[in-house]
Structure formats: structure tokens, C-alpha cells
């Protein structure tokens, strides 16, 4: 593997007529890295992926794969990657098995014996019947065909655009296993997804995109620091003291067993100070829920991106 990152995007811009799909996006994925690529519908995820695949030509900025230009060197670069779209359309007259073989052959990777053995293994893992005509497959099965074809050829980079849409939880687990295996072998993965549990399970790093630009980017641990912890406690004293503290949000108080039940969110940077104040009230019970990716998500998916982003800082 080369030293250049698998994916390197800098200040990428692309417009369709009046609509600006990408407005200065930055993104990078290194070898052995699984990067989650999140964002609401229409944020520019698929456009980014199509630029990376040399299908769309960017207006400005750079999109590089393994150091090569995604548009100009597309054919050579594609020898090293596999792509799974979110809505797979297959050649209706071919069977699933034929589609897989075709995609594997045009990818130009792998030797025949290895491919044959691995195909059998993948078909079994994904429980896919390769003898059915592609037009008769359900959405989930079409998705499996593309996944099998991608994992079959073991590329250096996987570009996955909502790859598990339509898969049942069992198959999602199989998918998870193969992505982990790929990562452990040092392969890079760009995983666009709406399934947060999947992202939390698989991704080392996450980029959240909104209106064509990255609004958050970093490791999951880093991003969690930008969020709030949910705290619920039953206290004896007057909770008004807590309500006034900086970093405390959405405080709700309800009477409970002679005490008061308080529930609030607290900025992670203030957790120590706030809990100190709470403990002076005579705590009878306390639970603190760490921030979930979902919270992070909801914050950025909300209607007012500017306000939400500043709210965390």
C-alpha cells in the first residue's frame, strides 16, 4: 500500500444548476480506517461519492484517491476500490451469480481460484441464492449481490453508500463482520449510513456533512466531548441552585418519594462542576447517560445548523 491516504478531499465544490450540492467539503480516509459519513438526505453524501468515483466532475477543489486524481485517473484508481450503492439496480436478464461474476471480472482483481472459493463462502454467509434472475430479487437481495461482489475482490478501498438498506439484522451482522475483517487487513472504508448503531459499531472516525460541507469531523470519542450527558437524580434539597448553573439545559423537576426528581442535560465540559453542585443537595440516586451518536446527530440534523453548532461550543 502507498503512503498516500485512500481518500483525500479538499475544498470540494459541485453545483447542479442553481443548487450547490457540495460547498467546500473536506474529507480523508487512511488505510485501515473506517470512516462514517453521515448527514441528512440531500446533504451531498452521494454527490461526494460520485465525484470520488469519477462519475461527476467537481467544479473546484481536489478529490484524490491513493494520491491520484479521481476524475482523470478514474480507470486506474478503480482497480483498487469497490463500490456498493444504496439502491442497487442489476441487469435484469442475468442471475445474481452472473451479476457477481461480471462485476468481479470487470474489477480486474483477484485470481480465479481464490475468487471461486471466496464467492462460495460469501454466498453462504449472506444466504444468497445466485441462481435467481436479478429482476426477481427483492431490494435486500439486490443489495447482497452488490455486497458479495464488493467483498469478493478484496480491494484496498471500499466505498459504501448506505450499503445495508433493506438488509435484515442478521445480514447486517454479517456485513459488520466483513467490514471489520477488511479493516483488520488494513483496507480503508468510507461508510455512508443513516443507521447510527452501525456507525457506532464499525467506524473509528466520523464526518458529518450538511448542506455540502463538513460540520463535524473526528473520532467518535472526540465528537462525544462536544455533546451533553443526560443526568437524572433524586435529591432532597432545592434543585433551583442547579438550574442556574452554566452548562445545564432543559431541567425538569418532578416531586418523587418526598424528594425531587430532576432530569437535565449538561455540557460534557461542565459535568464535574454541575455534579459537584448536585451532590450538595443530598443525592438519593443518580444515573448519567453518556451522549449517544444520536444526540450528536439530532443536533446537526436540526433545522438551524449554525445555532446547533454554536450551541455545543
Amino acid at each position, binding site marked *: 500500500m502507498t503512503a498516500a491516504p485512500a481518500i483525500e478531499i479538499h475544498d470540494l465544490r459541485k453545483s447542479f444548476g442553481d443548487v450547490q450540492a457540495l460547498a467546500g467539503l473536506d474529507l480523508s480516509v487512511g488505510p485501515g480506517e473506517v470512516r462514517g459519513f453521515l448527514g441528512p438526505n440531500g446533504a451531498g453524501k452521494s454527490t461526494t461519492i460520485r465525484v470520488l*468515483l469519477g462519475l461527476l466532475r467537481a467544479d473546484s477543489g481536489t478529490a484524490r484517491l491513493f494520491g491520484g486524481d479521481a476524475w482523470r485517473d478514474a480507470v486506474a484508481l478503480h482497480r483498487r476500490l469497490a463500490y456498493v450503492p444504496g439502491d442497487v*439496480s442489476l441487469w435484469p436478464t442475468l442471475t445474481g451469480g452472473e451479476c457477481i461474476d461480471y462485476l468481479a471480472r470487470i474489477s480486474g482483481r483477484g485470481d480465479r481460484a481464490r475468487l471461486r472459493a471466496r464467492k462460495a463462502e460469501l454466498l453462504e454467509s449472506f444466504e444468497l441464492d445466485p441462481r435467481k434472475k436479478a429482476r*426477481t430479487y427483492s431490494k435486500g437481495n439486490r443489495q447482497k449481490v452488490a455486497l458479495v461482489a464488493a467483498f469478493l475482490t478484496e480491494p484496498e478501498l471500499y466505498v459504501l453508500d448506505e450499503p445495508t438498506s433493506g438488509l435484515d439484522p442478521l445480514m447486517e451482522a454479517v456485513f459488520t463482520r466483513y467490514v471489520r475483517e477488511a479493516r483488520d487487513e488494513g483496507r480503508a472504508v468510507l461508510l455512508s449510513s443513516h443507521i447510527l448503531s452501525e456507525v457506532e459499531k464499525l467506524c473509528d472516525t466520523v464526518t458529518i456533512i450538511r448542506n455540502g460541507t463538513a460540520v463535524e469531523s473526528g473520532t467518535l470519542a472526540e465528537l462525544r466531548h462536544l455533546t451533553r450527558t443526560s443526568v437524572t437524580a433524586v435529591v432532597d434539597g432545592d434543585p433551583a441552585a442547579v438550574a442556574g448553573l452554566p452548562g445545564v439545559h432543559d431541567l425538569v423537576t418532578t416531586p418523587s418519594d418526598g424528594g425531587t426528581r430532576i432530569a437535565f442535560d449538561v455540557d460534557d465540559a461542565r459535568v464535574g462542576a454541575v455534579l459537584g453542585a448536585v451532590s450538595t443537595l443530598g443525592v438519593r440516586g443518580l444515573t448519567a447517560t453518556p451522549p449517544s451518536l444520536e444526540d450528536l446527530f439530532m443536533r446537526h440534523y436540526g433545522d438551524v445548523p449554525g445555532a446547533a453548532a454554536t450551541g455545543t461550543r
Partner: protein
Amino acid sequence: MTGTGTLLRFMLRRDRMRILWWTLGIAALYAGGLGEYLLLDDPEARAARSLLLSSPAMVSMSGPGYGLDDYTPGAAVANELVLWVLLALSVMSILQVVRHTRAEEESGRSELVRAGAVGRHAPSVAALLLVVVMNTVVALTSGAVVAAQGLDAAQSFAMTFATALGALVLGAVALVAAQVYEHGRGAAGASLAVLGAAFLLRAVGDVRERHGSPLSWVSPIAWVQQTRVFVDLRWWPLVLCVVAIVGLLALAAFLGSRRDHAAGLVAVRPGRADARPALTGPLPLAWVQQRGALLWTVLGLGVLWLGSGTIIREVPRALDAVAGNPVYDALLGSEGGLGGEEQMIRTFLGIFGLYIAAGAAAYGVAAVLRAKGEEETGRTELALAAPVSRGRWLAGPLTIALLGTATVQVTGALALWLGAVSTGYDELALGEYLELGLVYLPALAVLVALAAALHAWVPRATGLAWAMVGYVFVVGMFADLFDLPAWSRRISPFWWVGSPALGDVEPARLWGLAGVAVVLLLLAFAGFRRRDVPTL
């Protein structure tokens, strides 16, 4: 059957443009056909046409021959046009029924519908009512068109409504097929096969015996034609249509109650688990995708040209009778007189050459525009995400389109020759027919390349390629009749071919056409290399 009304209204709304186009198309077919039959205004012309229509080849492509003794325009419409209108409406009914029943189930959309307060049979009933409405609208409109041309109004509407009823028989066949087959394509294919059998049985039956033999009566097409409309109208053959429709509907309801939603009664056979070794890239894939369409086009058009070839022998006799008619002269390009017998046949061959080439052009444009369909479904993206260059990808469908067009063209010319020699006409050598086919190849390449270039540069405007195919035909056929200005004729690639059957071809022009085709092809590749896929 709860919810039938709502479903029907929804279908009518979804299909309002289809209904409009089918209605206009059939009306235009009647109007165009009538324009020709109204020329039968003198006894000689009638006698000539009647003679032509008595040949077995023409019987197989028209009707049982009622009214041939006094071949009035009405009798001609009923004998010659009803068959084709009935075929068109039957295809319409089949496709509409399958589209709203089995295809909906296949796509999963009907699951949403059936989850509502909608009965098990409601989608089927609504789909059937839809084709009833469509056929009625078409019958009313086209009946009015025919009557407006001065034909007896009652007979006109009797003809169009009888035709509509015949089409409904095939609609009911499609409804049964939709219960049996699990996939829309299977259901439509089986129904179209029934239609094909009906066509063949009627043709063979009527050729055996004038006014039809028992064999003809097996076919629903005969039930419509046997009403003897415009000659000696009788209604009872239509009872057969009604009985057939009722029987088929009962069968469909019976089968429909016995099967699960989205399941068929015929299982789909499993295919290959591994691809053939030859499937290595876009070109073999394009071949796998298009070979079926190519085969059917070669066979279908081949039968048509074979049939046409069998009437070549009769041409001089028929033409003699219409000589001097200015409209025919303009169509045949024979203002200076028809000349000798061979000259007449060559003139006619020239027209067949144009027909064959127009058929090949339509195939070619459809074949190359498969690339557009591939892109719209997202399959192009899947292929281009692999190490496949834009050029290599486009070369797949384009190569098949070019070679396929040449195949359709040359086999068409061969079929014409085969038809001619089968009736004992051997004045013209095989080479002459082949030449007639081959001289059009550069012009056909221009049309195919034009479609490719449009797809590469302005995918939204690929309709222009179809317009060009129509234009080429109009110029070739009607340029003199409409007195089109010289410059407008030169836009048509076919104009540059000249009159091959009369030996009036300039090789330099053919080279010029080939040059234009090459330039357009280069443009296509250059354009496809630089644009976004898919274009949004």
C-alpha cells in the same frame, strides 16, 4: 371488490397521457389509412386494389376479403385496417392490464394499496375497467374520425366498437396470465404469444379459403372481421367475444382467489449460478442484454419483408390500374410514366428498400438508446465504478446497435428476395436485393451515431433521434407529394442515398455519409468522456 372506483380513478390519472397518445395514434392510423382508401374513387382503382388484396400474401396481412367484388373505401378499411388497429389495441390492452396488476405486485406498490380498504379482486377489476374505458374512448374518437371522412356513421362506429371488443378479449387473456405468471414480463410475453397465435391462425385460415375457414374462427381477430362491417353487417360473431371475455374473467377470478399476493402459479426456473466465461466486459454484456430484442426484430421484420416480397410479382398489374393518379405518381415518383414491367418493379423495390431501412433505423436508435436506460437505472454507475473507461463502456451498446442495425437491414433485403423467388419471380438477381440493402448502411450509421452523440452531449434531447427516424421516412415517402423544399430533403441522411433500385446512387455521397457517421461517433465518445454520469 371494495375500492375499485378509487383505484380506477387513480389509474386514469396515472395514465392520462398514455390514454391521450393511444387515442391520437389510433385516430391517426385510421385517418392515414382512409386517406389512401379514399383514392379508390373509380372502378379501375378498386378492381386493381381488390386484385392485389386477393393474393395469399396480402390476405395474410389483411382480412377475410369481404367486399372485394365492390371494393369501396369502407370495405377496404374494414378488410385491411381493422387487423392492424385490432393488433395495436390488443397490445395496448395487454400492456395496460399487466402494468396495473402483475407489474404492480412485482414492484411491491400494490402491497401498499392492498393494505388499505381494498378487496382482493379490486386491482384486477379496476385494471379491466381501465382498458374498457381506454378502448371505448379510442372507439368513439376513431369512429368519429372515420365517419367524418364521409363514411356511413353507423357502420363506422360498429367497426370501431367491434374492434374495441376484440381487444378486450386479449385484455382478459392478460388478466389470466397475470394470475399465472409471477413476473410482469412473463405475463405480458404469454399474452402477446396468444395474440401472435391469433394472428397466425386467422392468417392461415383465411388464406385457405376466401371469407375464412373453420380454422380462422379459432382466432378472436376473425370474430371482429367476420362482422362483415361496411359490406353486410352481422352482429352475432361478437357474441363469441363476449363469451370469451366472460369465460376468461371467471377463470382469472378463480385463479386469483387461489394464489397468494405477489405469488404466481408458475414457478420461475433457476438460472446459472456462475457467469459464462465470455461475460468479461461491457460488450459481451450488451450482447447478452440485446440479443433477444435483435432476434425478435430480425424475425418479426423478416416475416413482414418476406410477405412483402411475395407480392412483388403482382406489382405491375396493380400499378397499371393506378397509373395516371397524381397522388400515386407522387408517392411512386413516376410522374414521367411507369415505364416497362421491370421498371415498375424496381420503382416498387425502391419503396420497399426505404421501408426496410426505416425499420432498421428504428431498431438502431432503440438499441443505442438502451445506454440511456442503463444510465437511468444506475447500472452504468455500477460498471463505471469498476476500472472500465467511459469509452469502453459506451462502445458496448454502440457496437451492438451498429452491427444489429446492419443485420436487420441485410436480413430484411434477403427476406424480400426470398419472398419474391418463392412466388417464382426471379427477374432480379439476389445481388440486386443485397445492394438495395447495403447502400443504406452508411445512412443508417449516421442515424445510430446521431442518437449516440445526443446521448453523450444532451441526454435530454435523445427524442430528436426518434424525430429524425420519422423525418427520414417522411422525406423518403412523401417529399414529392408534399412538395418539400430541396434543403429540407437534404437534412435526411436517406436522401443522399439516392434511388438504389433504379441504379441512381453516387458512391461519393455514400462515402460522405460514412464520414459524417464517423465524426458523430467520435463526438459521441468525446462527449460521453467529459460529462457527468448520471446527468441530473
